[in-house]
């Protein structure tokens, strides 16, 4: 899986920007791996997940330590291309999200001079660069979707001391979902490849891209099989939050196309399938099946526990886990780029529901609630998703047509302080009570 050396021992001086943090992230994952391995019944899925994530951290540490090319990019930027060009990339909020921000990070976010009404993830991104928690990249690929803040964040990085001269290429996302839109974005991907060849000094290997895409096709196929199992009543696994995080992390936040990813997700799907066959419920006595109509919130743990223990309620699907990926045709360069364009624009979580008109979000809610036999929809109303908050009227109408109860909240998916869990629990409690949810099952 990885031919890069393990990270330098933590005793070596961490003078380079971002090095200390990435060593810390790697150390955290090593600790997790040890803990899992030493447990009486090691979870092979988690073990595989953390090993893959650790390998990515170690490669990044190696790049920082040895001044190797390192790219700043995002999940919606066709990371299959980076893999085919042998470019190590990082998304600078990934690790903070996966391991969770420290109290120091939360305080630091507040201190960054950007308005309090902005998204926690964006604040974290601004904070990480301003504070020097991440390395200055060789080059940067800006993602201008799914929200205004995402575009503005990159502009702010370009104005942050130390990052001013970083060569930057931005991918202009098309707005629609037609053949023209995909062709246009495929053109953007071609221009990105030229930019990377010019500024990172690595050449595009189209045969390697084919291999990478074929591997990712298998990854997404395995993920779809897992999601299929979650449709069962009762749902074989508890809340979708951790598994959505896991699958998204493996498919889009590490070097793309690693065959080990297929193994991990296949194990997950296999476990779910066995439990479906045995009639095992992820939440014993499952009474309420929820669609969480947004990304996985960073603070999902206590919420899922409360839902399961107090209400036998299970979040059977969320927008992060539900992304109907299609196989990419690898027969030609063009077919691969157009396939990647479609994946980037139409299949990646959050971008899928937020990029264009309101239609995709409503279609997804309609399909998921039917396919997953949901009893209700919880729309968290994340502060960063301005477009979705301006879609609540459409959401109400759709849920009314579906005859399914809808709860609209206001939260920050990435900042647990925004709406305390006690307040969330109270609102959800009142919602369940008002609709008599869970009574008849």
């Amino acid at each position, binding site marked *: 899986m990885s031919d890069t050396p393990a990270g330098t021992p933590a005793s070596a001086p961490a003078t380079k920007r971002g090095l200390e943090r990435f060593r810390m992230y790697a150390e955290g994952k090593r600790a997790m791996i040890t803990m899992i391995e030493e447990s009486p019944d090691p979870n092979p899925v988690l073990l595989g997940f953390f090993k893959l994530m650790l390998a990515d951290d170690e490669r990044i540490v190696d790049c920082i330590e040895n001044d190797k090319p390192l790219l700043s990019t995002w999940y919606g930027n066709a990371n299959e291309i980076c893999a085919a060009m042998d470019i190590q990339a990082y998304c600078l909020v990934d690790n903070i999200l996966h391991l969770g921000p420290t109290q120091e990070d939360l305080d630091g976010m507040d201190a960054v001079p950007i308005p309090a009404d902005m998204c926690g993830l964006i604040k974290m991104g601004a904070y990480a660069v301003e504070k020097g928690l991440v390395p200055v990249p060789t080059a940067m690929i800006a993602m201008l979707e799914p929200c*205004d803040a995402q575009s503005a*964040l990159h502009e702010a990085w370009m104005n942050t001391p130390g990052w001013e001269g970083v060569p930057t290429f931005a991918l202009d996302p098309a707005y629609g979902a037609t053949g023209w839109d995909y062709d246009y974005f495929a053109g953007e991907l071609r221009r990105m490849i030229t930019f990377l060849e010019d500024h990172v000094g690595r050449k595009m290997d189209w045969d390697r891209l084919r291999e990478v895409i074929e591997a990712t096709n298998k990854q997404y196929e395995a993920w779809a099989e897992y999601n299929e199992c979650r449709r069962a009543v009762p749902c074989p696994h508890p809340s979708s939050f951790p598994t959505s995080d896991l699958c998204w992390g493996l498919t889009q936040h590490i070097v793309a196309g690693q065959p080990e990813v297929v193994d991990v997700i296949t194990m997950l799907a296999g476990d779910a399938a066995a439990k479906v066959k045995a009639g095992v419920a992820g939440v014993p006595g499952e009474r309420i099946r929820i669609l969480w109509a947004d990304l996985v919130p960073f603070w999902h743990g206590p919420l899922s526990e409360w839902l399961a223990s107090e209400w036998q309620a299970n979040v059977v699907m969320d927008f992060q886990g539900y992304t109907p990926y299609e196989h990419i045709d690898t027969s030609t360069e063009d077919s691969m780029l157009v396939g990647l364009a479609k994946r980037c624009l139409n299949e990646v979580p959050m971008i899928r529901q*937020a990029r264009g008109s309101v239609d995709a979000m409503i279609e997804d809610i309609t399909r998921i609630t039917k396919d997953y036999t949901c009893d209700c929809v919880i729309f968290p109303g994340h502060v960063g998703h*301005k477009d979705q908050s301006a*879609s*609540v009227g459409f959401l109400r109408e759709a849920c009314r047509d579906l005859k399914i109860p809808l709860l609209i909240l206001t939260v920050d998916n990435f900042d647990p302080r925004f709406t305390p869990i006690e307040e969330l629990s109270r609102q959800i409690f009142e919602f369940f009570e008002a609709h008599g949810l869970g009574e008849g099952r």
Partner: protein
Amino acid sequence: MRNELRSTALEELKEAAACLTNPALEEWKSQGGKVIGCMYHFVPEEIITAAGAMPYRMRATGSTGTELSEARFTQVNCSFVRHLFDSGMRGDQAFLDGVVSANNCDHVRRLYDNWVAKVPTGYSHFLVFPKKSGPEQVGAYRMRLAAFRESLEQHFGVEISDEKLRAAITLHNQSRALQRRLYELRRSATPPITGAEALAVMVAGTCIPRERYHGLLKQLITDCAGAPGIDAPARVMVVGGELDEPAFIEAIESQGGLVVTDMLGYGYRACAKDVGTDGDPLTALARYQVLERPADPRLFGRTTEEREHYITRAVEDFGVEGVVSVRLMQCDHWGFEQTNLMRSLRKRKIPYLALEIEYVLGGVGQLRTRAQAFLESIVEARNV
């Protein structure tokens, strides 16, 4: 800030900016003229003019509440879209014969979706605008403009020839040239009009039929020649996005800071450059919107360069001593741009004040207090 200028043209322009409609617009309508609403400033109004209709920049002037928006938007959405939607639901925008919008921002693009779904609108069109600036985006946007032209032709049964487009571009360039002349007058040590008055003039340009507007603007420029001028303790620039409320500028000027120039959507950004008149008119319009017009943070990649340019111009040409930026709450584009601006101005040691407001101005007392402290700091710094 008191201005001794007496101008009936200025009074008519100010009255037009203070209301949604005005006598000239009503006369246009009474003669069968069509009025097309444009949400925000990325709609190329020249195409609407070439269709024989009047482009109208949509605003919610006079709105006092957002009750009818509450079912469609939440507090996460900016007050501009909530007031505008409320205004549409109440029928205040019923004089519009159609609406054109673009994916300006996350709030406005959903405002369009909601508007089309809930507000009776004869004609509607969504014009996708690229998120970055480059030659490929000009080509893509030109294609969108061609579709927009065709859509107007079909709906209104008109032909929009290249000749008509060129004539419309020339007409709009004349507006911009007149507006720039007004801005030039403000470079004087004693400018003839206040910043609040200048903003009203610019807003009026988006709601009065163009020929009438040109007449008023020419008259105003003539009137300014004989004006005694305003001697202000401090010269200030205002930077921001969607600001159509002269009362905001008045609040700053009431404390002794004369706003001598700006970089606002309704302001200098709207008139700084002309649209090219050679070659294919749709390409010229696409180039103007994507490459040439002063960018705001919505268009990725050009803001830094633009910012440096306009700050230099403001300081060197207009004698600006301090910069005030204004952001509508919940606006992510301007949230970061205020930070970028702060960094840039700090390097140049130019005093800077960042303000956050709601679309319908409230808390004017607090605004004045902050402006007063800022303006005092400019005067003190000058005297040190």
